[in-house]
């Protein structure tokens, strides 16, 4: 049966209006009209026409055709092309899952796995004659050929009788369920490397040799003989080892032994993670007593108040987003949500963040290597994935950024974060502790397993090239996951399970391999896991990354109740094994053992990498700075810079206030269109204690020194926390490294320098966090952000994202960036040092400057504490931290938020600093703010800040503009309209699909 549903008049459909305007601007102005119909197809015999109409259509707004075609009606009479887009077999189609459920509800009958329910979307397009290239562009715009199939019928073909199908053929090819034995015993080193590449294991020769050594061990051979396993590895064992040892999961580079050279200086670093990241937190643990669980669970956990804990995790989803931006980002966001659900005894997600980094939107399409998508396409898809992933899950996107940088044209960086809350105690036990014991049941729940996402973990540990496996791509289904979340929260509060973890990269192999460490072993029966379709090999079941699944540990005493509640909540749960203390991961398929791996070897048998890093500081010539008569143009260019400019039309498509906790929103001010420094949320209804959520990222500084990049990144996140009114003593951070491959090789001759940049970033991170007292509670790294396509290598700038979650003691004392009242005084806090190297000004002026912004953390911390005291004493009206674009941009933003105006005089700054006007206006010295103070609080404020650098630089004036003077010279004079126009000019916001 084919069911077409469409609005009774296509002009009332907002979607088709939007589609038309996108087609006109992005494909061709020749397109004249567009209309959309939703198509459902099924071979289920017991569905009557009447029932189908009732299920699929809204009879007030829509019309339905059964086994007939809207293309043959006067819906859009003079169309020229009909495109029908459907998913390829095996790709998750959440709408089809709902349609299946709806048919079951209506008919009261259960559909078996073989019964097909499919969806498609039909586009009717009316256009003037299109060139073949335009037609291809149109087809490309309407679908992603990686996951979808497009069928095109033109008017002539239609008139000749061409029609769309009643059902789409095709199913996923069945794999043999036989387990293969892989011979490695006799293989040479070269053959081992070849095997690793052929099987997409992404293992190095050292690692392959370690595996060979494991199978040669006598004790292991004895165990294998006893279990009737071959002495050579089985395919499932190799796959499990490769997944567990992938860079994505084991962070081999951050754990490598590094010989670091900086001129004469040499040192050996045993592990960057242990000596820099973890050490930072360990040193701070004595004073930061609110830390609960750091670095070992699915997210970092801290105490929020007496009754509650909060947790935070940020993941990257770069490789999948490069290939399928929509699928990549939606699985990124729902995936990190699961990290929160899998934390401790199960936390509830309360906010999402996303920092999205793309190539420049103005990139010449011809310069994009074959096989890669244009940054605009990537942005559009990623944005859409975040919208669906966040909105449908009911988790507000509270903070984030869109960053544009030419180095991200190869791989976009998609950072997805989620924060959660959990009661401190559940049935009297600490909620951050999982207690998994021998004999407990292994339950997998949520979605079913298909071949989607196989090799995701190993694939993301490789550079992108033409051969990148498309099977690594998946689509998320937020609604299935929402049911899982609701069910688990209910089960948690009834004390029905002990803990769990998410099935993300590496699937069951990763989740169960980790949980097994708690009890000391596990037995998994792979045939007990429910499949989407027949024909998955046991190893595919183990490493599939099919979404929306959790692995949960349930004791024998509660298993019945757990499964009963799961059924009642329409969530599929299956017992697929038992936790043991055997010291082994035992893999069974249809009661036969197909794999057996020692836990110790699996988790600790990975040979350590030994690497060399050589730091050679780049030197740039001095640049003579010319005085200008006016800086209006420079300021407007900065306001329109793709990274700085307003993304409001994009951000407002995210739900940022569901859960009703939003206090400082993404946009603030008189017209709610000026930028906030970060978010403030109030997670507990009965308390005014709140959370701040901020970010720091300064990837351009890496061109000069990744140390400053990291230090300034930490400072940016922390000073935004301070600017929002956050408590300087309680802020925790997450570090997410996204690096180009830092291992020297033929394809990466500059690996030693890139590794030195990583070392320096870790030094900057540690030094700054220790000074500020900011523990690192969780983090992640992605080390292969390069693309090798058509002989052209594109590597990302070394990027460290700092995501900060802090405490604000009283949200009613939180601050925003918009100037509030005419006549109030404006101050700048913090010394200005004039560094322009790596800054936004450097980017827009296309001139390389030699000096990278330098952090003085001691001075900064002193200032932050004083400012916080002034804020909590309620003698400050407005705070805005100085970030991208420096003082002038910050002033323009605060003025825009006020819709009043301001008059500034920088002559005191010029006198104090001996800097040029241009440096004062646009340099990015960290640790600075502008603040607004009422005249009656002037004395108190200046007393509070005594000892730190501050200067009164102007007044809020009802002049509807921003005027900046240097004594008698007017150097900036821009009207409110000019500020608004420049800041809202960014074209990328108008082109999201």
């Amino acid at each position, binding site marked *: 049966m084919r069911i077409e549903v469409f609005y009774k008049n296509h002009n*009332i*459909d*907002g*979607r*088709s*209006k*939007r*589609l038309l305007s996108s087609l006109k601007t992005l494909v061709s102005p020749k397109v004249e009209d567009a209309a959309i119909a*939703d198509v459902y197809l099924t071979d289920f015999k017991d569905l009557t026409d009447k029932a189908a109409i*009732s*299920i*699929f259509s*809204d*009879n*007030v*707004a829509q019309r339905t055709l059964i086994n007939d075609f809207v293309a043959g009606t006067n819906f859009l009479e003079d169309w020229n092309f009909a495109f029908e887009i459907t998913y390829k077999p095996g790709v998750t189609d*959440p*709408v089809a899952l*709902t*349609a299946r*459920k*709806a048919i079951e*509800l*209506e008919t009261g009958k259960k559909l078996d796995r073989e019964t097909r329910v499919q969806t498609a979307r039909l586009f009717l397009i009316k256009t003037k004659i299109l060139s073949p290239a335009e037609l291809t562009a149109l087809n490309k715009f309407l679908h992603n050929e990686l996951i979808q199939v497009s069928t095109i019928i033109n008017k002539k073909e239609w008139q000749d009788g061409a029609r769309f199908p009643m059902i789409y053929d095709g199913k996923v090819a069945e794999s043999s369920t036989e387990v293969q034995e892989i011979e490695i015993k006799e293989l040479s080193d070269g053959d081992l490397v070849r095997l690793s590449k052929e099987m997409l294991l992404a293992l190095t020769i050292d690692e392959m040799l370690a595996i060979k050594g494991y199978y040669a061990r006598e004790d292991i051979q004895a165990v294998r003989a006893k279990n009737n396993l071959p002495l050579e590895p089985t395919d499932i064992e190799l796959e499990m080892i490769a997944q567990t040892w992938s860079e994505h999961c084991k962070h081999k580079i951050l754990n490598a032994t590094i010989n670091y050279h900086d001129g004469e200086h040499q040192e050996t670093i045993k592990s960057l993670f242990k000596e820099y990241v973890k050490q930072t937190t360990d040193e701070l643990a004595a004073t930061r007593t609110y830390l609960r669980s750091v670095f070992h669970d699915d997210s970092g956990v801290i105490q929020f108040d007496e009754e509650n804990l909060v947790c935070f995790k940020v993941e990257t989803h770069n490789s999948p987003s490069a290939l399928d931006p929509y699928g990549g980002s939606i699985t990124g966001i729902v995936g990190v949500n699961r990290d929160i659900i899998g934390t401790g005894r199960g936390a509830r997600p309360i906010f999402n963040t996303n920092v999205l980094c793309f190539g420049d939107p103005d990139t010449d399409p011809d310069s994009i290597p074959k096989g890669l998508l244009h940054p605009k396409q990537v942005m559009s898809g990623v944005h859409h994935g975040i919208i669906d992933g966040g*909105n*449908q*899950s*009911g988790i507000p996107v509270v903070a984030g950024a869109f960053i544009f940088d030419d180095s991200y044209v190869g791989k976009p960086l998609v950072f997805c974060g989620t924060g959660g809350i959990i009661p401190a105690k559940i049935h009297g036990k600490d909620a951050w502790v999982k207690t998994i014991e021998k004999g407990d049941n292994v339950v997998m729940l949520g979605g079913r397993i298909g071949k989607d996402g196989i090799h995701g973990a190993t694939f993301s540990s490789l550079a992108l090239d033409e051969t990148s496996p498309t099977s690594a791509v998946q689509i998320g289904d*937020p*609604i299935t996951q*929402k*049911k899982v979340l*609701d069910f688990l929260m209910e089960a948690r509060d009834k004390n029905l399970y002990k803990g769990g973890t998410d099935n993300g990269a590496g699937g069951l192999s990763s989740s169960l391999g980790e949980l097994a460490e708690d009890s000391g072993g596990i037995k998994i029966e792979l045939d007990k896991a429910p499949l989407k379709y027949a024909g998955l090999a046991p190893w595919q079941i183990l490493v599939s990354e099919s979404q929306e699944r959790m692995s949960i540990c349930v004791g024998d005493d509660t298993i019945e109740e757990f499964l009963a509640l799961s059924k*009642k*909540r*329409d969530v599929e749960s299956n017992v697929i094994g038992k936790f043991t203390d055997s010291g082994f991961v035992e893999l069974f398929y249809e009661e036969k053992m197909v794999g057996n791996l020692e836990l110790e070897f699996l988790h600790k048998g990975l040979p350590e990498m030994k690497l060399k890093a050589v730091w050679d500081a780049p030197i740039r010539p001095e640049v003579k700075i010319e005085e200008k008569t006016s800086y209006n143009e420079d300021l407007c260019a900065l306001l329109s810079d793709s990274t700085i400019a307003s993304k409001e039309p994009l951000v*407002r*498509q995210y*739900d*940022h*206030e*569901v*859960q*009703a906790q*939003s*206090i400082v*929103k993404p*946009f*603030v*001010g*008189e017209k*709610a269109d000026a930028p906030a420094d970060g978010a403030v949320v*109030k997670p507990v*209804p009965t308390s005014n204690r709140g959370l701040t959520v901020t970010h720091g990222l300064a990837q351009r500084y890496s061109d000069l020194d990744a140390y400053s990049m990291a230090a300034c990144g930490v400072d940016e996140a922390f000073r935004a926390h301070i600017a929002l009114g956050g408590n300087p003593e309680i802020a925790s951070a997450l570090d997410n490294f996204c690096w180009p491959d830092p291992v020297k090789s033929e394809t990466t001759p500059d690996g030693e320098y890139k590794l030195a940049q990583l070392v320096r970033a870790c030094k900057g991170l540690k030094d700054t966090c220790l000074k500020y007292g900011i523990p690192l509670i969780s983090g992640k790294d992605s080390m292969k952000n390069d693309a090798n396509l058509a002989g052209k290598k594109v590597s990302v700038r070394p990027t460290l994202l700092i995501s900060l979650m802090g405490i604000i003691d009283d*949200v*009613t004392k*939180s*601050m*925003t960036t*918009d100037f509030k009242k005419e006549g109030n005084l404006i101050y700048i806090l913090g010394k200005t040092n004039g560094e322009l190297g790596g800054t936004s000004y450097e980017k827009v002026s296309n001139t390389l400057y030699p000096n990278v912004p330098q952090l003085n953390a001691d001075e900064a911390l002193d200032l932050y504490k004083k400012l916080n005291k002034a804020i909590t004493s309620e003698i400050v009206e407005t705070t805005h931290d100085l970030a991208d674009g420096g003082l002038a941009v910050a002033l323009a933003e605060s003025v825009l938020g006020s819709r009043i105006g301001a008059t500034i005089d920088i002559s005191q700054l010029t006198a104090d600093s001996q800097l040029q006007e241009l440096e004062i206006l646009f340099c990015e010295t960290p640790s600075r703010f502008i603040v607004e103070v009422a005249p009656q609080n002037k004395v108190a404020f200046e007393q509070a800040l005594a000892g730190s650098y501050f200067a009164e630089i102007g007044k809020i004036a009802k002049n509807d503009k921003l005027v900046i003077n240097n004594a008698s010279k007017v150097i900036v004079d821009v009207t409110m309209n000019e500020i608004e126009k420049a800041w809202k000019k960014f074209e990328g916001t108008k082109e999201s699909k």
Partner: protein
Amino acid sequence: MTVKACILTGYGINADIELTTAFKMAGAEAQRVHINDLIENPALLDEFHIAGFAGGFSFGDHLGSGLVYSHLFKKNLKAQLDKFVADGKIIIGICNGFQVLVKMGVLPNTKGDWTQEVSLIHNDSGLFQDQWVKVKYNQNSNCIWTQGLAEADLPIRHGEGKFITDNDEIKSYIVENNLGAIVYDGNPNGSELDIAGITDTTGRILGLMPHPEAFIYPQNHPKWHRTKSDKIDGIKLFENGVNYIKANFK
């Protein structure tokens, strides 16, 4: 007396926790109830005075906003809800909850037979929109939820909020009987008659697209940092509901 509110959850409803909080702040004893528990035991609804259909993305809005949830509810609980209304009890549906009430024909239900007469479709922009809007309450409406209220600032967060009527007859009926209880001051989505919320002929059922349950602290307001105003527009609707029950039930 204890006013008891039943907040429906399940299958992608996601604004149920804050709706429960809002009713508690308004003085009710509010409880989240999974729709499957209600289907298993429909009489459970009798224990409540207020039914709250919260916002969210039930069944992902995949086949149309609120459509599948409305089928599920109507198929299993129509008689129970008819009794609930006949008993003089009250209902509020917000955003996805409003879409559910409309699609199962509970709003506006001018003929009393649960025929769908109006709809909520894709916004004119074709986009999901999160923004604050000003709404005005219809002073001639008999809706018990909006009595005594003049206007409010509330957030909207929807992609399918454009209100349309099936025909001119029902449109006139809505106008003449003042069923349009809440209208936008500045139409954000292309709704007919600027309608943000409607009531039924009894005035005891209200559905609206804006989210009063997301304005439950003064600081939720996007301009609070400028005004420092202590007003909380959202809570007033819920207080009206709770007070109505207190006045009419013992």
